[in-house]
C-alpha cells in the first residue's frame, strides 16, 4: 500500500522563487498540501520554530544566512524544536567539497539541480525509509555521515551514485533539429578559429 503523504508538513527555504514554486508544484502533485515556502534562512528558522515540520528543503547559498547556517541552527540551537528533522539541501553546486561541507553541518540528503521528479521522489523515499541515526560528538551533531551500504556501489566513485545525474531522455532528432545544432556547432568553430 502506498504512502499517505497528505499528513506531512514541508518547509521550503530558497531565495529562488522559481525553485520554491517548482518544489511546491511537485510535492502538491504527489499529495502533500501543507507546504510553507520562505525566501531566506532567517525567515526559515522562524517558521521552523513556530510550526512542526516533517521535512525541510533548503538552498545552499542564500543571504543573509546560508543554508548551511540554517542547518546548523536546526541541529544545534536551543530554540530548535526538532534537531532530528530530515533536511534535504538543494543546490546547483554538487562538487564533492560542497557536499562534504553540507554533510559536516548536518544535512541529511543532497539534491543537485537540475532535478527530475524521479530523483526528488527518491530523496523523499530515502528520508522516510532509511533515516540515518544521529551522531553526537564534541564537534558534531547530525545524521551519521558514514557511508551506508549502497547496493549500487561497485567502485571508488560511489559518491556519484548519491548525486546521480538526471536521467535524460534519449530522443531521435529530426533533420531540422540536427541541422540547427550542427549550424550552432559550426558557429562555435568559427569563433574558436577552427
Amino acid at each position: 500500500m502506498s504512502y499517505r503523504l497528505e499528513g506531512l508538513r514541508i518547509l521550503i527555504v530558497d531565495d529562488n522563487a522559481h525553485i520554491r514554486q517548482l518544489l511546491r508544484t511537485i510535492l502538491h502533485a504527489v499529495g502533500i498540501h501543507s507546504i510553507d515556502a520562505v525566501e531566506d534562512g532567517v525567515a526559515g528558522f522562524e517558521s521552523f520554530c513556530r510550526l512542526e515540520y516533517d521535512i525541510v528543503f533548503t538552498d545552499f547559498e542564500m543571504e543573509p544566512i546560508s543554508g548551511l547556517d540554517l542547518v546548523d541552527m536546526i541541529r544545534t540551537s536551543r530554540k530548535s524544536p526538532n534537531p532530528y528533522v530530515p533536511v534535504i539541501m538543494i543546490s546547483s553546486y554538487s562538487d564533492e567539497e560542497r557536499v562534504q561541507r553540507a554533510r559536516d553541518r548536518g544535512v541529511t540528503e543532497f539534491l543537485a539541480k537540475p532535478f527530475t521528479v524521479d530523483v526528488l521522489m527518491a530523496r523523499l523515499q530515502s528520508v522516510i525509509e532509511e533515516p540515518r541515526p544521529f551522531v553526537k560528538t564534541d564537534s558534531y551533531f547530525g545524521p551519521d555521515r558514514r557511508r551506508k551500504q549502497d547496493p549500487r556501489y561497485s567502485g571508488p566513485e560511489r559518491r556519484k551514485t548519491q548525486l546521480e545525474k538526471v536521467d535524460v531522455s534519449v530522443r531521435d532528432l529530426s533533420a531540422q533539429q540536427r541541422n540547427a545544432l550542427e549550424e550552432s556547432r559550426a558557429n562555435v568553430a568559427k569563433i574558436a578559429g577552427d
Partner: protein
Amino acid sequence: MAQNGSENGAYQLITPPNLLKAKVSAGDGGGIDPDLIKQAESVIDSMSGEFAESVGHEIARLMKLALDLAEDMAQAEKVMKKVRSVGHELRGQGATYDYPLISDVAASLFRYTERLYSHVELSADVLRAHADAMRAVIKNDVRGDGGAVGADLVQSLEALVDRMSG
C-alpha cells in the same frame, strides 16, 4: 567511525523512532504512489512551454548583454554579473523540463564566468555562441540529450571556454 572532535573518539549514536514513516505508512510495504509520480511528471511536462518561453527571454537578454559589451567594455563588470546569474539559473532548471541541453550549455556559460580571472576578459563572442546554442535548442524544441550532435555542440562550447579563459 567518521570524523569526531573528542580525543578518545567517544561519540553517542542516537536512533530516534521513525515517526515520519509511521505518519505516512499503513505498516505494510509503502512507497510513493506511482500514479501520483506520473501525475507530477505530467504537471512538470505541462510547464515546459512556460520554461521554453523564459529561456527565450534569457537568450534575448544574453544577446543584448553581448551587444552592450561589444559597444562599451566599461560595461564588462555589470555584464559579467548578469551573465553569471543567467548561467546559474538555467543550468539548474533545463533538465527538469526535459531540456538537458539547456542545462549543459548554461553550465558551460556559468563555468566561463568562473574561469575568467577578471571581467575585463569577458568576450561578447563567447556570450553569443552560448546564446546561439540555446536558441537552436529552444527554437527547434530539442528535448532529451540531443544525441551525438548535442554532445558535440556542448563539448565545442566547453573547449571554447577553455580556450578563452583560465
